[in-house]
Every structure is written in C-alpha cells, then in structure tokens.
C-alpha cells in the first residue's frame, strides 16, 4: 500500500514540472533563490574596494543585527572624536570618511558623520545622512533610533518642528525596550 502511494506522490510531484514556461532561459537555470529573509548585517568591517576578491562569505544565518564597529573603524572614530574635541570638525569629518570607506554599510558611521556635519551647521546634509543610516539599519532598533534622533535634530535646526517631533517620537518608540 505504501509503495503505490509513494509512486503516486512522486508522480504527482513530477507532474508539476511538466508545465514549461513559454520562454526558455538561455541556459538551464536551476537557481531557486532562498527566500529573501532579511540578510543579517555583518558586524565585521566590509573590505575596501582595494584588493582582489578571494571569495566572499555566504550570508551568515539570521541573527540579532546590532551594528558594531570593527577595530580599524573604531580607531578612526576615536581619532575623530579627539579631533572634534580639539576644535577641528573638518578634520574629524575627514577621519570619519576614512572609516566609511572601510565600512560603507555601517549605519553607526553615517550617524556619526551626520552628527559631525550637524556640528558645523550643515543640517540638511546631516539629515540626509540620518536617512541613509536608517536605510542601512533595518533590524537594528537601536541604530534606527539614533538615526531618527539625528533626523529630528536636523529638522528642528531648520525650523521644521512638527516633523522634528514626529521623528523624535519614532526614535523614542524604537528605543523603548
């Protein structure tokens, strides 16, 4: 009894692939792409576009995606902090840009650079960087909250208070545990 049923099952399964598409792809395509679950953000620095590719690692399994800075970016961020504190915001910005070249997908760096631009009065640019950080911070509420706060600050500095408040409340919602 089991065998015929199995045969029927397998035959039914096989039938499904007989319905061919009207257009055949040029080569026998067999790539069934795995479902696009949110690919986790790597916490290691992504490499700079400055060397040949050995083999990129496949996407790691889904995990809580709290962004962190790699060792090189951390050192640069520290340097930038000192430079900003020393009264040289342009230099701090240049140092943060160095860090961004190493980890362009790290929202924390975009937030920091945005904050640096805020300190020199470039509010629109700071806000744009906040939005950029937001785009990269999917799945990381802490980073998203920071981004919204930056966006809020930039809006308020430009006199757009209702929008600023909306941004702040989004930040608060995300930051709340």
């Amino acid at each position, binding site marked *: 009894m089991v065998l015929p049923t199995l045969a029927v099952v397998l035959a039914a399964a096989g039938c*499904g692939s007989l319905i061919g598409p009207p257009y055949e792809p040029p080569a026998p395509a067999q790539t069934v792409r795995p479902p696009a679950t949110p690919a986790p953000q790597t916490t290691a620095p992504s490499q700079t576009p400055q060397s040949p590719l*050995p083999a990129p690692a496949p996407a790691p399994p889904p995990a809580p995606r709290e962004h962190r800075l790699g060792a090189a970016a951390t050192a640069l961020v520290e340097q930038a902090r000192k430079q900003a504190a020393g009264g040289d915001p342009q*230099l701090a910005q*240049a140092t943060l840009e160095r860090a961004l070249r190493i980890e362009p997908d790290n929202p924390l760096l975009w937030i920091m650079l945005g904050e640096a631009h805020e300190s020199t009065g470039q509010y629109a640019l700071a806000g*744009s960087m906040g939005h950029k950080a937001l*785009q990269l911070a999917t799945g990381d509420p802490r980073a998203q909250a920071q981004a919204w706060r930056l966006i809020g600050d930039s809006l308020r500095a430009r006199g757009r208070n209702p929008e600023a408040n909306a941004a702040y409340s989004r930040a608060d919602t995300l930051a709340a545990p």
Partner: protein
Amino acid sequence: MKLLRRLLIPVLLLAAAGGAVATVYVLRLSQTVVHQFEGRRWTLPAQVYAAPLELYAGLPLSEKDVESELKRLAYRRTDTPQSAEPKTGTYRRIGARIDVGLRAARFADQARPAELLAITTSEGAITDLRDALGREVPIVRLDPLLIGSIFPIHGEDRIVVTPDEVPPLLPAALKAVEDRNFDTNRGIDVLGILRALWVDIRAGEWQQGGSTLTQQLVRSYFLSPQRTASRKIREAIMAVALDEHFSKADLMNAYINEIHLGQDGNRAIHGFGLAAEFYFGKPLSELDLDEIATLVAIVRGPSYYDPRRHPSRVLKRRNLVLDEMVEQHVIPESDARLAQAQPLGITSKTAGAYYPAYLDLVRRTLRRDYPEQDLTEAGLEVFTNLDPRVQADAEHVLDRELARLDRVHKQRVPGAPLEGAVVVTAPQSGDVIAVVGGRDAGYDGFDRALDGRRQIGSLVKPFIYLAALESGRYNATSIIQDQPVSIRVAGGKLWQPENFTRENYGPVPLVRALAESLNDATVNLGMDIGLESVGHSLERFGLDRAPPQNPSLLLGTVELTPLEVAQLYGGLANGGFRTTLRAVRAVLSADGKPLKAFPVEVDAVAQADPVYEVDSMLEQVIERGTGRPALGVLPRGLIVAGKTGTSSDLRDSWFAGFSGDDLAVVWVGYDDDRVAGFTGETGALPVWSHLMADIAMSSWNVPLPDTLQSVTIDYATGFRANAACSSDLVTLPVPPGTNPPLKPGCPTTAFGAVIGSVHELMQRAGQWLQSMAH
C-alpha cells in the same frame, strides 16, 4: 696733434658716455635678475596623488598583494638582517611578515613622518600590524602614489626638493663634473671658459662646457637657448649678479630644481626631483650613487643623453662622471667601481604611474575653482580618490577583452580599432576610483569616459521601471503586456520597435521584462507611466539636461558619457541616495595648508522601497536575464546587479552594474559610430564581469526593508507559485498586501505543501550533486 686734442675731449666724453650706458645696462640687468630670482623662484605645477592604501587587520591582501602595492610605490626589497631596521623606502620579507621602512607622507588631512611597519598576513589577509616598538597599529596608510601633475601649457613639470631631500653626493657630483670651482667662483669662470675653448678647438668633443652652474641656471631660467655672443654676455652679467646676491647653497638648490633633464611628449622634465621619479620611479633622496651619476650625465644634453633612446651612450658618460668624481676625490675608487658595474636601471616609462584620463577629470574639476595659473604654478597638492589597483586592472581588462573581441568579430575593419571606456566608482561615497578613456590608456587624447557621448539604449530601462513602481500602480510581480508596439510619432510616421529576439511573449511579470530587456513590454509600460515621469526620474538621479520627450526615450536614444551613466546608476546602487561623483578629495597649498575639501555628500532623491525593488530586479538581470553570462566569470556566491545596454543597430554596447562596494560602467563601440555588432551582453559585459571578478569584495546584500515583504513567483508567468508547480521560482520584494494570483494547478493544500517540500528537497539534492561535480 691738434686733431688729436680736438678729438680727445669728444672721445673721452663718448667713452665716458659709453661706459655710463654700459654700467647702467649692467646694473639694471642685475637688478632685474635678482628681483625675478628672489620673487618668483619657479612655477610649481600641481601635484596629483591617488588615494592612499589603508592597511588594517582583516583587509584581504595576501603577502604577494602587499608586496605588489609596495612595489607600485617604488619600495625596494632588501635583505637587511633582522637586527637592522629597513631603510626608508625599502622592505624585507621574513616568513609571513613584511617589514617596511615607510616613507614620510603627506595626506589630505595630515602629514606623517617616516616610520617602520611590520605587516603580517595569513591565508590571504592581513592579520597584524605593528610599529617599531612592537605595538599594535589598528590602521595605517601607505604613502599616496603620485599619479601626475598639472603643468602649464608650455609644458614645464617639476617636483621641488628642499635641501634636506637632496643626497649630498648630487651637489658634489655636479661640482666635480660641471663646475669645479663653483664654491669659489664669482658666477663665471674666465679660466674655465678659456680652457674649454682650448679643449673644444683641439678635440671637437665635450669635456668641459665652460659654463658654471650659475650660468647654466641663468640660461635655463631666464634665457632662450640661443648661442649668440650678446646672449653670452648677458648670461655672464646675470650669473655674476646672482652670485653676488645669493648664497652658493641657494644657487645650488635652485639649479637642482630648475635644470632641464628630459622630455615626455609635451611635458618637459625639470629638476632632479622629478627626474628621479621619471627615470627611476623613486624619490630623489633614495637614489644610489650610480643613479645620481646617471642624472648628472644627462645634464649635458637631455635629448642627446636620453637614457631610454641612447642607453649605451648614457652608460658611457655615467661611468665617465664616476671617474671624474674619483679624480676630484668626491668618492673612493671602490665605490665608483661598484657603481660602474651596475646596469643603467632606468624604469620603463609606463611603469611609472601616469593616468591621463583620470588627470583630465581632476583638471576639469579644479578648473571650476582655480584659475589656470594657480593650477599650474602655485604648487598645489591635490589628493584624489583614484584606486591604482582598480585603475590598473580596468585598463588591463579593457585592453585584453577588446583584443579578444577584435579576433572574434567578423566585421573587423583594419585601421579602425574597436574602442571602449570604463568608469569605476564607490557608489556609497561617490568616489570616482578609476577612469579609462580608451583602449590605449596611457595615451593622452580623446577621453571616451568623460567625453564619449553615446546612445545608452536599454540602460535607460531601470528608470522607466522605477517610475512605474513609484506610481504605486506596479510592483515587481505586476503583469505587463509584451505585445507589438505601434506608436504614431511626430511627423506622422509609425514607430514599431521590436524585441531583440523579434518575438513577443504576451503577459510577463515586470521583473522578467526588465531582466530580459523586452523592448515592447517596456515601451508599453513607459507609455502608460508617461514620458514626463520617466524624464523626471532620470533628472532626479543626476541627468543634467532635459531628456527628449519622445517615445524613443524609452529605448534610450538619449546620449550620455560613461561618467554620466555612472552618476545615474550610482543612485540606484546607493538605494535612492544620490552622491555627487568626486575625483578630488582635497586640495592643499604648496606648504600643506588645506584649501578646499570635497566631502562625501548624500541626498535622498527617491524613496528607498521602489529603488530596492528595482535593484532586486537588476539582480535578476544577472541571475536570469541578459547579464547571465557574467555568472560564468564572477566568483560563486558574489551577488551583483546591473543592466545591459544596446543602442539601435548595435552601435553601442554598454553594461552598468554594481556589487556591494563598486559600481562599474563599460562602453564598447567604434569612434566613428559605425555598427559594432555587439550587444551589451556580448561586448561590454565580458569587460565588466572580468573587472568585477577582480575587484569586487562584497555582495550587494542590502537587507529587505521593514516596509516591504517577500513574495515567490514563477519567473516566466508571474503567478505566485511554489516548488511543486514551478521549476523556476524567484523571490522578490513587493509592497505589503501584494498577492499575485496563484499559478493554475499549483497545490495549496497541506498535501500539496508536503509535495512541494519533497520536490524542493529533491531539487536541492540535485543542485548539491551538480555543485559537487564542479
């Protein structure tokens, strides 16, 4: 007697007048020359540097790669024992460790003295960086590569060196050979002139020119190279004046920076600083005795003694120089013998870094802010975003692939080579990291990357699809009609474009129409969305002129340069954020003061979600569509996205695409706009995929936004499906609530789900077996 007396006074007066005139003349000439020499010094062209290579633990550079980068910067390998430190400008390998004597460097944001660095690599990546005291260094930059200079129209180029950058043997050699009494003479050497005359009369060959270094300096700096008697007199007067007013050290330094030492096309090489780079690829301070002697040999006549055209002649003179140095007790004989045994050691001209296409872009950028004179004379230091590795690779790949296409191409016309252009950027920051203007990258001519305006063909399509998605009426799974198009255009004619395959496929999902670049489906979509929307989308992404408002826009009859295409696609690669493309990072004055910075700027020009959907569809161009051949070249697992572009009649072949970190645009075609016969897939794509395979370091893997959801459809028909009823599934991001109809005959019961799982399992097993076979 009386006559004499009558003539005496007028003659005396005349003599006095003549003497007065002469004195005035001499005084004025002296004043002018001193004033000019003091005030102006010399014109300093802007020096242009590539982006410095940042080293840090985790960077995937193998030991071999690190060594290549050091060699690119003209570091020499030595075998100093472990007890000693490597000299500045050298490195040594000890096992998996490379010890480098890093040169002092000036960057856009700081200057750094020379220091030691120990680089350890393992399995293709840097694992450790330590300084001279053994402390860990988290990140360090190599000195930036000098890639050229912006020199004035009359073509003088130089690198100014300060006295402490000049090896002491150089002035010693110059004095020994050119002006033995330099330290004591008064600017001219009368005995020397006489001696030279005597020697010249006797031998007709050189031995001593008779001119002092000061005279040579005057000649080079002030006067044209005419050899008339009056010039000689002026030269003598001016030399004496200079010697009177300036120290010997000053004059020597001026000489070292001024003297003409070579010619490179329309670029005149002046000064030993640039000559050291030009002939030996090294800073002047790192030259060895034999190399110094070679440069001193060239002084006598840079074209007669051109070491690349007349190497044996130069070698002979170099050894003569060394002999002279021994005779004048400048160096011991043993040193001279050693030096004489060395080969000339001149680098090939192309070994040095000279990227005219990129320099062109830099020049254009700076001309907006600086008058020509400042650019070419003020000694500006220009720091750029050029990545020399990517640049070298792009040049090499373009040349190689075009040669291959030449061989393959049946309609090849002799004398009319197939040409191409490449632009590479880092879309997240807007850095322009490589520009290749043509097949012969070193040729400073027509720059196709910046000026080659060609029809972009299907490259326009992603912007049509973006406009469609932004309208809210379409998503990646929407069904559109790939049916024949017939539109009446201005002039009453009928426009009836066809698909490349000349077939129509009826109802197809949006993703398929884009991936396979179906013209008719796209035109139907575009006409529904409206040309204005499409044009608006192009403008937002950086098109700086009004797009044509006729339907042919939908098939890309707009003409753009590769750089402009890179600007447009940058916004797609960057998730809807436009960044201005920048070749220049910062400009400093000659003494290191920051003058201008070009910071990273982003500007949201489109909502993130529709752009994400378009990017996902562009990924399918590679996975399933016209970009599929790239998969055979790219490393397995690297996810990229892009679009082929073919203009009508196959005149232009394009590919524009991106990974996680790089965007590259490639154009292939003929300069005279004849039919090239290549589609984007057969012409530009091979160049693009080989380049990407070399340089791309991360996949395009932006996470699915919270505001979108995934849906799995049958690629061919667009129906929602699962493995039980489709062998070609694709999962795409769509707005929430998007629910394509289920494919007819697709089981949805639990039983069906089980079948689906079993089927999927079997498919996966099949794939695994297949991959084992590779």
